[in-house]
C-alpha cells in the first residue's frame, strides 16, 4: 500500500510540475502581510529604537550620536538593575504558578464535576476585567491596615500577618499573586482543552492496568500535552516581559521603587521623563535578553520536532 501511494504521489507531483511555478508564488503572496508586518512594524521599529538609543534624544528623536552612553547610564541606574531582578523573580514565579494552578484546575474540573460551566466562568472572569480596577482591589485586600490582615484578625486569628505589600523585598510576590489570579483561568482553559483531546481509551487502559491516577497524569498525560504546554509557555512569557498594568495598578512600582519592572521603567522614561533615548536603550536590552533566552529554545525545538510543522 505504501509503495503504491508513493508511486501515485510521485506521478501526481510530476504531472503538476508545469503549474508548480505559478503555484509556488501563492504561499509567498499569502505571507506578504506577515512579511510587511515583521519588516516594517517589528524590525523597522526595533532598528529605529536602536538608532534612538545611540542618541541623546529627549521628547523627540534627534540625529546625534553618543555611542553607548545611554546604555552606560542604564546600567549605572539602581532602579533599572532592581527592575531586571524583579522581572527574573516575577517571571519564574508567575509562569510556574500559572502553569501549576492552571493545570491543577483543569485536572480537577475534568473529573466530571457538577457545575463545570459555572466553575469555568469563575476561573476565567478575571481575564475579562481591566486590571486598573482589579489591581486596586488587590492593593486594598493586601493592605495591612484595612484588608485581608484586618479581616482575619477580626475573625479571631489574632496573629495573622501578611504585610508583603509594604516590604521592599516581598512586594513583587504580591504582584505575582494578583497576576496569577488574572491569568491562570486562561491557562486552565487551554489545558482543559488539551486534556479533553486525550482519548477515553487511554483512561480505560490505565484503569485496567491499575495505575494510580496521579502517576497517569505525570507520566502519560503531561507528555501528551507537550504542545499545549509550549503554547502556554510562550503566551505567558510574552506577558511576563511586558508586565506593566498590574504593577502600576497595584503598587505603582513601590514602595519606593521596590516593585519596579523594566516595562514600567521604559514607559516612565518614554513619556513622563521625556527621555526616549534611555527608554529605547532599555527596550533594546530587554529584547536582547529575550533573544538570548528564547533563541536557544527555538533552535532546539526546531531540531527535535522537525521545524514545529510537519517533517
Amino acid at each position, binding site marked *: 500500500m505504501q509503495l503504491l501511494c508513493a508511486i501515485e504521489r510521485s506521478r*501526481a507531483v510530476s504531472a503538476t510540475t508545469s503549474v508548480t511555478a505559478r503555484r509556488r508564488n501563492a504561499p509567498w503572496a*499569502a505571507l506578504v502581510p506577515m512579511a510587511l508586518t515583521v519588516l516594517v512594524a517589528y524590525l523597522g521599529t526595533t532598528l529605529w*529604537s536602536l538608532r534612538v538609543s545611540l542618541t541623546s534624544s529627549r521628547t523627540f528623536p534627534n540625529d546625534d550620536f553618543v555611542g553607548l552612553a545611554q546604555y552606560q547610564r542604564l546600567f549605572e541606574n539602581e532602579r533599572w538593575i532592581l527592575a531586571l531582578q524583579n522581572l527574573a523573580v516575577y517571571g519564574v514565579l508567575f509562569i510556574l504558578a500559572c502553569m501549576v494552578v492552571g493545570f*491543577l484546575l483543569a485536572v480537577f474540573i475534568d473529573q466530571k464535576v457538577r457545575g463545570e460551566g459555572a466553575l*469555568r466562568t469563575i476561573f476565567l472572569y478575571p481575564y475579562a476585567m481591566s486590571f486598573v480596577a482589579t489591581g486596586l482591589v488587590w492593593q486594598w485586600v493586601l493592605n495591612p491596615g484595612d484588608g485581608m490582615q484586618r479581616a482575619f484578625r477580626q475573625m479571631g486569628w489574632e496573629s495573622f500577618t501578611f504585610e508583603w505589600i509594604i516590604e521592599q523585598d516581598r512586594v513583587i510576590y504580591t504582584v505575582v499573586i494578583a497576576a496569577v489570579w488574572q491569568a491562570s483561568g486562561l491557562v486552565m482553559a487551554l489545558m482543559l482543552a488539551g486534556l479533553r483531546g486525550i482519548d477515553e481509551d487511554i483512561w480505560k487502559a490505565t484503569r485496567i492496568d491499575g495505575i494510580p491516577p496521579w502517576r497517569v497524569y505525570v507520566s502519560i498525560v503531561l507528555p501528551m500535552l507537550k504542545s499545549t504546554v509550549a503554547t502556554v509557555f510562550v503566551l505567558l512569557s510574552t506577558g511576563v516581559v511586558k508586565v506593566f498594568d498590574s504593577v502600576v495598578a497595584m503598587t505603582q512600582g513601590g514602595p519606593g521603587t521596590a516593585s519596579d519592572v523594566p516595562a514600567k521603567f521604559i514607559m516612565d522614561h518614554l513619556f513622563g521623563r521625556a527621555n526616549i533615548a534611555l527608554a529605547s536603550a532599555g527596550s533594546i536590552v530587554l529584547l536582547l535578553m529575550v533573544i538570548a533566552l528564547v533563541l536557544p529554545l527555538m533552535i532546539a525545538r*526546531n531540531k527535535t520536532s522537525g521545524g514545529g*510543522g510537519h517533517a
Partner: protein
Amino acid sequence: MKAARIGVYAFLIFAALFFLAPLYIMVVTSLKTMEEIRLGNLFALPQGLNFDAWRAAWSEACTGVSCEGVRGGFWNSVLIVVPSTLLPILIGAVNGYALSFWRPRGANVLFAALMLGAFIPVQVMVYPLVKVLAAVGLFSSLSGIVAIHIIFSMPVMTLLFRNYYAAIPMELFNAARIDGGGFWRIFAQLMLPMSTPIVIVAAIMQITGVWNDYILGLVFAGRDNLPMTVQLNNVINTTTGERLYNVNMAATILTSLVPLLVYFVSGRWFVRGIAAGAVKG
C-alpha cells in the same frame, strides 16, 4: 473513592473562593455610598442596596466636559472589535496554514522574528508607528486602529493556527494537492472548515484583548472612534481629582460585561473547540 471526590470538590471550592474574592469586593463596593467606603471595611456588606453608582457609571459619571458615563464609547468599541477580530483571525489562519504545510523557504525565520516581536512592549512602538500610519494617511482613523490591532495580534494568532495545523495529518494535505488543489483552494475548501475550534479560541482571545485595549485605541483611533476603555479610564483615573470608588467598580464591571458574555456564550465551544485537537501535540 468518596474521599477523593470530596478532595476534588474541596479544592475547587477553595480555588473558587480565591478567584471570587475580588469580584465580591468590587460588587459590594459598587453598592456602597462613599461615606461607607471611607470607613474602610473592605469585606463588609453594604448597608443598603445603593444602585446610584451603577447608574452614574453608565450614564452620569464625568469623563471630561461631558458627564455621560461610559456608555458613549460602547458602539465605538463594537465597531473596532468586529473587524479587529475577523481580520487578524483570517490573516493568522492563512499564515499558520502557509507556515505549517507549504513552508516556503525562509518563512520560519520570518515566523521567529514575528514571535520575537510579541515580546516588545507596545508603547515602545507607538511613536514610529504613528509616523508610518501618518505617512499612509491612516492615523487617527478606524482603519488605522484596525491595522494596528492586526499588527499587534499577528504573533499570537499565527502561533495558534500554526500549532493547530501542525496537528492535522500531512497526508490530508498531500491528497488535496494531488487532487489538483492550489494554495487558496485547499485553504478555503479543506483547512478553513476544519478550523472551527481554533477559530473560536482565537476569537475569544482577540475579542477580550481588543475590547480591553486602552493605549492603542487612545493613540490611533482618532477622537471620534475612541473605545469604551478610554471613558472607563477617564472615570477611574485621575491625578488630583476626587475618586468615587463605587462608580469606578461599577464602571469596570459594566465594561467587562461584553467579554464575559462572550465567554459565557462560547464557553462550551471554547473547551470543546480546543478539545478537537487545536493544541494537541
